[in-house]
């Protein structure tokens, strides 16, 4: 007896919205298939060539042609708009309080780095019902990968040299399969793993480095028992690797780098203007560049400036000199520095409040 699986579980609210869109699309597909196939079959039978049957000369019909141009156009616009709405919910609208996880892909495996500086490989641990924002990049010199969780209907390419972001809020605890979906060579099909969604108690235990029981798989078809046995052969591919090697948080590490790499010589952390702009309160804020453009200083901006400081220089600092750092900092160090700069935010908000 063949088992074809079933419709995949929707483990997030966004995935449920996605499913509604998908059922609508299936409906549209079935409807238009019938609109074509039923007449096709009926005409084939009714107007088959036979003795005594003569064809009728018809060359066109303007009203009909306008009708079948206009109606699909309207339906297509509905599909487009719905697709956009779902896209916003699925990819863009990350809540501001989302827990952030840095994702680093390399050929062929995944490293997840949490806010407290811990890292895990191939298993992404998250609490249930908490929004999680993923900031993803591939190792330097590596190729493009893509992070895909079918149960979340979620996918984003992971590109070296760029931070791509996406988010999710898992509702169903358990292990959710994820895949690499951008072809990356020999190990592409084993570059897989699981998002481990933990109940709140388990999450607290795991956070403090305590042992927990691994939750069951949440199968693509929702058949947990079968998934569990079927997947046993692959357990080896993603053993739990909760590395406690570096107990320092990302921010601490970033602070150390800020001092050790000499950034502090020009960039203060307390708002004092040096040769370069202070790091205090700059993250996520708009800034005017020397060429008049205005942009937001986000992860990609900071990363780009570290690697090529002259590219997008801030107004007023045209004559400052800073050596470019391409390759001098590892990806993990870059993450740490950015996390540190980001942490220097609270005080500005406080400052702004007092000013107001």
């Amino acid at each position, binding site marked *: 007896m063949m088992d074809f699986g079933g419709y995949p579980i929707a483990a997030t609210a966004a995935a449920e919205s996605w499913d509604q869109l998908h059922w609508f699309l299936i409906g549209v597909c079935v409807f238009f298939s019938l609109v074509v196939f039923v007449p096709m079959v009926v005409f084939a039978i009714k107007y088959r060539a036979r003795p005594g049957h003569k064809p009728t000369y018809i060359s066109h019909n303007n009203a009909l042609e306008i009708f079948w141009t206009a109606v699909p156009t309207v339906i297509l616009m509905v599909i487009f708009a719905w697709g956009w709405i779902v896209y916003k919910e699925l990819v863009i609208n990350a809540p501001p309080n989302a827990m952030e996880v840095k994702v680093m892909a390399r050929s062929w495996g995944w490293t997840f780095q949490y806010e407290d500086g811990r890292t895990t490989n191939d298993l992404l641990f998250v609490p249930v019902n908490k929004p999680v924002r993923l900031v993803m990049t591939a190792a330097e010199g590596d190729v493009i990968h893509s992070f895909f969780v079918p149960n979340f209907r979620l996918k984003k390419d992971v590109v070296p040299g760029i931070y791509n972001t996406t988010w999710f809020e898992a509702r169903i605890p358990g292990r959710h399969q994820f895949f690499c979906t951008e072809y990356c060579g020999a190990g592409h099909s084993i570059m897989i793993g699981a998002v481990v969604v933990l109940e709140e108690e388990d999450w607290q235990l795991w956070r403090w480095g305590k042992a927990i029981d691994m939750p069951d798989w949440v199968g693509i078809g929702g058949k947990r028992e079968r998934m569990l046995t079927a997947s046993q052969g692959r357990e080896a591919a993603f053993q739990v690797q909760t590395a406690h090697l570096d107990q320092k948080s990302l921010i601490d590490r970033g602070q150390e780098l800020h001092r050790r790499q000499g950034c502090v010589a020009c960039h203060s952390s307390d708002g004092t203007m040096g040769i370069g702009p202070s790091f205090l309160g700059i993250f996520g804020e708009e800034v005017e560049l020397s*060429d008049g453009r205005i942009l937001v200083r986000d992860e990609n901006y900071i990363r780009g400036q570290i*690697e*090529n400081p*002259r*590219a997008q*220089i801030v107004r007023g600092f045209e004559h400052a000199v800073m*050596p*470019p750092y*391409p390759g001098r900092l590892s990806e993990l160090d870059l993450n740490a520095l950015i996390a540190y700069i980001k942490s220097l935010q609270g005080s500005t908000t406080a400052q702004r409040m007092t000013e107001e």
Partner: protein
Amino acid sequence: MAGSVDTEGFKEHHPAHHFKDADHEFFTVKNGMWLFMLQEILFFAPLFVAYFTFKFIYFEDFQYSAAKLDWKLGAVNTVILIVSSFTVVRAVVAAQRGNNEGLIENLIYTIICGFGFMIVKAIEYSSKIADGVLPGAWMNNAALVEAAPQAPLFYSLYFMMTGLHALHVAVGIGLFAWLLLKAKRRELGPKYYTPLEMTGLYWHFVDLVWIYLFPLLYLVG
């Protein structure tokens, strides 16, 4: 000479069997040539798009690197190409009037201009190579990279854009040499000068590409 058309003494050309007459052939070939140039534009297009993309991202570095180019040599080459476009037009007019000597003379001028362009280009390239200013991973000029970290990318584009253009110039020189041979055999006259007209169109295109490349690479910096 002006106005008089000498149609005597030229080898007769028979249009290919699937054309009605010589005019039909001429206009079909011309049609094909315009289509060919359309694809040429799109062949150059990705390099221009890449140039604008990276110029936008690495504005300062690209300005800095572009300023290092020798705009005087670029200007000399611009003049050379404009002159050669003029001599090509004169060659076509000479052929239309049956003035074979004038045709040969102007073809020779055009070929000289072509070589002149290539020599100036060679001077320019060799000075860049001597300074270690080479594309991408071959870049060997630490001072430049220190001042403008994305200079290798600029020079990649510079070498590829001017290189692809120079390749077209070289092909043009070959075509004109072939036409010179034809002219000496008196095969190009008022009744049949199709290859000359088409090569002329091609040459104007090559000229035009340079007219865009020169300000973009040499002057904007």
